[in-house]
């Protein structure tokens, strides 16, 4: 009986309901943007953010109202969820896209071969000319040294935690890695400053900066490597052990090759994270307008500090201002290239499934 009463409520076919056309979301989006701009113009709001927010709210509410009317409440809820995801996506992408657009637009002004291959030398703060060769060398050496120290330590720590660590020591290591993840970069810089420069009496050098960067990079490498090693199925370890392969060779020849793509990605992301660090580098490496290829003595330049100083000296316009943007563009490009290299390596090394 209940079946009959249920189907009585649904006229016609119960499987087919009214649907809005495919272009409905686009039309709603366009309509709400026009309305948003209209409302802002009438109300005299002049900020881009204000009409954008009004349009976003109109879009979400509008899709719900129209869909509820035509399609029913369940479909309307589905549309609201979809439109919320889209709004969140756009909110995330807009700043990123505008950041890249602004950097490229302002950065290309002075970015050329000369800029990449010359140092600041005796170029005055506000004079045009000069370049970032010294800063590129400094950043590459400092980041390279930091990676050279923290990648072996980090990967080995992760191997210990995943493959060997049991009990209190492993728990303590995990805890300290977590704590290290939260260390602000300036604190890492102050720690090395008090230890290396004040207590040991060493001078400013690229290496001092590398040590602070190592502190920042290490936990990221440990964490990401740990996650990647945990993804390796236990069956593979057992298969290898059951062949009479010792544990260390199993790790070296089976576990690491299986996860090397992910580990490389993690390391590259960690490098990208420290390449933009300014505070500890400013504290420990100091700056120089000259080329210093030796990271173990005397101040070195680096891209983030270069950007900061050029901007600080510029007063918001002029040659130094343009140089700051161009250096920022180079730094972003450097990190992007690293990311793309990481993706390439991950794809190249990923376990193959082809027939």
């Amino acid at each position: 009986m209940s079946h009959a009463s249920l189907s009585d409520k649904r006229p016609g076919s119960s499987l087919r309901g009214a649907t809005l056309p495919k272009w409905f979301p686009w039309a709603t989006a366009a309509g709400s943007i026009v309305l948003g701009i209209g409302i802002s113009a009438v109300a005299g709001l002049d900020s881009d953010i204000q009409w954008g927010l009004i349009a976003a709210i109109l879009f979400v509410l509008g899709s719900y109202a129209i869909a509820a009317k035509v399609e029913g409440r369940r479909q309307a809820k589905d549309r609201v969820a979809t439109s919320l995801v889209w709004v969140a996506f756009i909110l995330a992408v807009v700043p990123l896209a505008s950041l890249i657009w602004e950097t490229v637009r302002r950065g290309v002004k002075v970015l050329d071969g000369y800029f990449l291959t010359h140092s600041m030398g005796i170029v005055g703060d506000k004079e045009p000319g000069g370049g970032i060769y010294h800063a590129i060398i400094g950043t590459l050496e400092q980041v390279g040294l930091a990676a050279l120290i923290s990648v072996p330590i980090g990967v080995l720590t992760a191997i210990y935690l995943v493959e060997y660590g049991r009990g209190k020591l492993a728990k303590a290591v995990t805890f300290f890695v977590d704590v290290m993840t939260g260390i602000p970069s300036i604190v890492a810089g102050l720690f090395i400053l008090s230890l290396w420069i004040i207590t040991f009496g060493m001078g400013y050098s690229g290496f001092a900066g590398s040590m602070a960067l190592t502190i920042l990079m290490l936990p990221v490498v440990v964490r990401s490597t740990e996650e990647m090693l945990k993804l390796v199925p236990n069956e593979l370890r057992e298969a290898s052990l059951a062949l009479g392969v010792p544990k260390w060779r199993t790790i070296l020849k089976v576990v690491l090759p299986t996860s090397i793509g992910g580990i490389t990605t993690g390391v590259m992301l960690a490098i990208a994270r420290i390449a933009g660090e300014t505070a500890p580098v400013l504290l420990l490496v100091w700056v120089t307008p000259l080329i210093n290829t030796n990271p173990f003595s005397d101040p070195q330049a680096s891209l983030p500090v270069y950007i900061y100083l050029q901007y600080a000296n510029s007063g918001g316009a002029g040659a130094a201002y343009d140089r700051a943007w161009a250096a920022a563009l180079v730094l972003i490009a450097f990190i992007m290239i690293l990311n793309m290299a990481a993706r390439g390596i991950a794809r190249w090394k990923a376990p193959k499934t082809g027939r």
Partner: protein
Amino acid sequence: MAKRIDVSGLNAYYGSFLAIEDISMTVEPRSVTAFIGPSGCGKSTFLRTLNRMHEVTPGGRVEGKVMLDDENLYGAGIDPVSVRREVGMVFQRPNPFPTMSVYDNVAAGLKLNGKYKKSQLDDIVEKSLKGANLWNEVKDRLNKPGSGLSGGQQQRLCIARAIAVEPNVLLMDEPCSALDPISTLAIEDLIGELKERFTIVIVTHNMQQAARVSDRTAFFNLAAVGQPGKLIEIDDTERIFSNPSVQATEDYISGRFG
């Protein structure tokens, strides 16, 4: 080549939990011994104690004696790594190494253990793949990834990998449970051939399979969940399936279990 296994008074633990209790049995060389019994009764755990894989599980611990001919696998100074070279294992789910080609998968046990000449390796790989009835299917794609094979082929690849290191005993933990009937048949035929050279122990949930492939069958059971699993009886397969001496075995085989 093939060796006899003699187990006496074996207990296996996970932490403080006693998983199997007081197991004693003899596994004859050049024969197939099947383990049957309900899930959770400790068949696989017992199988893994025979090549010291049980202790790879965190908390895994074993008491008792497992004699391989005249050597106690749990005696003082025994290296589990050498034990596993003598007693090979094939797992429930095919697990070829995903980063390695078909060739490297078969050669893995040898390559990872020492230096071999290329020609030597070529011979062993061909011999092992032929031994696993896989050579004709993969001889033209030896350098393709092993994970690109079908499930049944992957399992035979794992068998080839296990026999390439020339073990004395081959343990198989439900080797056909993830395979279709045709692949299962291929593996059962293969087991029949392999028993000429190896001592084979196979865990299976498939009663017909146990009846088809094995010479002797051991029935395991547990009194209740949380209780340790025990060996109920071991006898010639024919006898177990026609006239078992314990009522519980007959109940289980005829489906009157539980």
